[in-house]
């Protein structure tokens, strides 16, 4: 597979995965850019015998997001800025399309989850990987992944229903 094919096929999935973790679109762009740069740099290291290319790419993506989270935790002021912008962005959302509102609502609900559940939701719904692949990627048990995903979906559903009522 050529790199451009990889890019075209997986950009949306990787971006969506990153976006679940990174609230701001600009920062998600930055992290996504780093992921594809790293993927290009590690071009020759991929071994098909170890797993599908999607799992390889999402391993890189996951590491990039973990790095981003660590950096964010070191700089607390960034988190505060994010929170402020998110609240301030709500009036702007009233003016955009309903679809965009719904999408942002989903992201906000995901933002309420703990890091592990957020990661599982991001992996599952951005890549469409099976629970077995996710279990291999995260090091969790397959059944544990299933339960955590189910709980996270229920929690997000409840949060979104509350927001919709408001």
């Amino acid at each position, binding site marked *: *597979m*050529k*790199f*451009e094919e*990889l*890019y*075209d096929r997986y*950009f*949306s999935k990787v*971006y*969506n995965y990153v*976006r679940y973790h990174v609230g701001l*679109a*600009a920062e*998600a*762009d930055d992290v*996504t*850019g780093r992921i*594809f*740069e790293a993927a*290009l740099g590690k*071009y*020759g290291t*991929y*071994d*098909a*015998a170890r797993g599908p*290319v999607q799992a390889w790419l999402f391993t890189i993506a996951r590491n990039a997001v973990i790095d981003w989270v660590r950096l964010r935790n070191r700089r607390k002021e960034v988190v505060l800025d994010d929170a402020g912008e998110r609240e301030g962005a709500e009036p702007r959302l009233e003016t955009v399309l309903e679809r965009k509102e*719904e*999408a942002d609502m*989903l*992201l906000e609900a995901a933002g309420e989850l703990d890091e592990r559940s957020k990661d599982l*939701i991001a992996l*599952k*719904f951005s890549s*469409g990987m*099976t*629970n077995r692949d996710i279990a291999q990627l995260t090091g969790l048990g397959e*059944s544990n992944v*299933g*339960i955590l*995903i*189910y*709980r996270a*979906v*229920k929690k*997000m*559903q409840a949060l*979104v229903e509350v927001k919709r009522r408001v």
Partner: protein
Amino acid sequence: MNEFELAERFNRELDGVFLEGKSVPFAPDQAAMDFAAELASADHSGDSAIRESLREWLVPSSGTAALDGGAVPSGWFAKVLLRLPRNVYARAALAAACLLLALVPIFRRSDGQGGERGHAPSAFRTPRSTERAVVAAAAAPRKPSAVFPAGARSESSAGQRVFHSRPMARLESEPIRAFPIESAGTGTPIVLAKGREVRLENGSRVVLETEHAVITLERRVISPEELFERRSL
């Protein structure tokens, strides 16, 4: 149905959502399944401001390289080529083949010089009839005239470019004042022989006649062909 069983069924049906791209019936909790389908269909990549610019930046630098394990080209030769780098034995065989190819010109060169055929590997030997002829030619004593064509010998200009004549003093005999070897007193006594000078066209010669031998010393201009053998390929 406990939470574990519910989660297991939910996840099993959820895989169907990804396959069909829409919500699937899930009696225990249809609302949760509908929400999961909404999550699965959500695409935030429209927010990205770098999608095209990043592609333009990365794709040209990726060149024509392809990911290992990508689409396998059709044809057995292409498949073999693709698998070569993974197999250790295949790598060694490839390296040996490359080395052999690199050494072929060297073997051929040494094969063509001096008829030293013994150094060439058997794969590069000439047929036996040709080999016998070459061996016979090498074993036969060579006359300078046979090796060095008359046409080439006459081309003294070529030799002159390499060898230059230097002016020489005339060779003359003169009486030896003190003989460097003293007689031991026994056996044949040492007798001084008188040299006879002979004038040559291009030098001089002194002939010394002793009791048992005649020794001739010459100092004359010589041509390169008298000392060296010139071979033509």
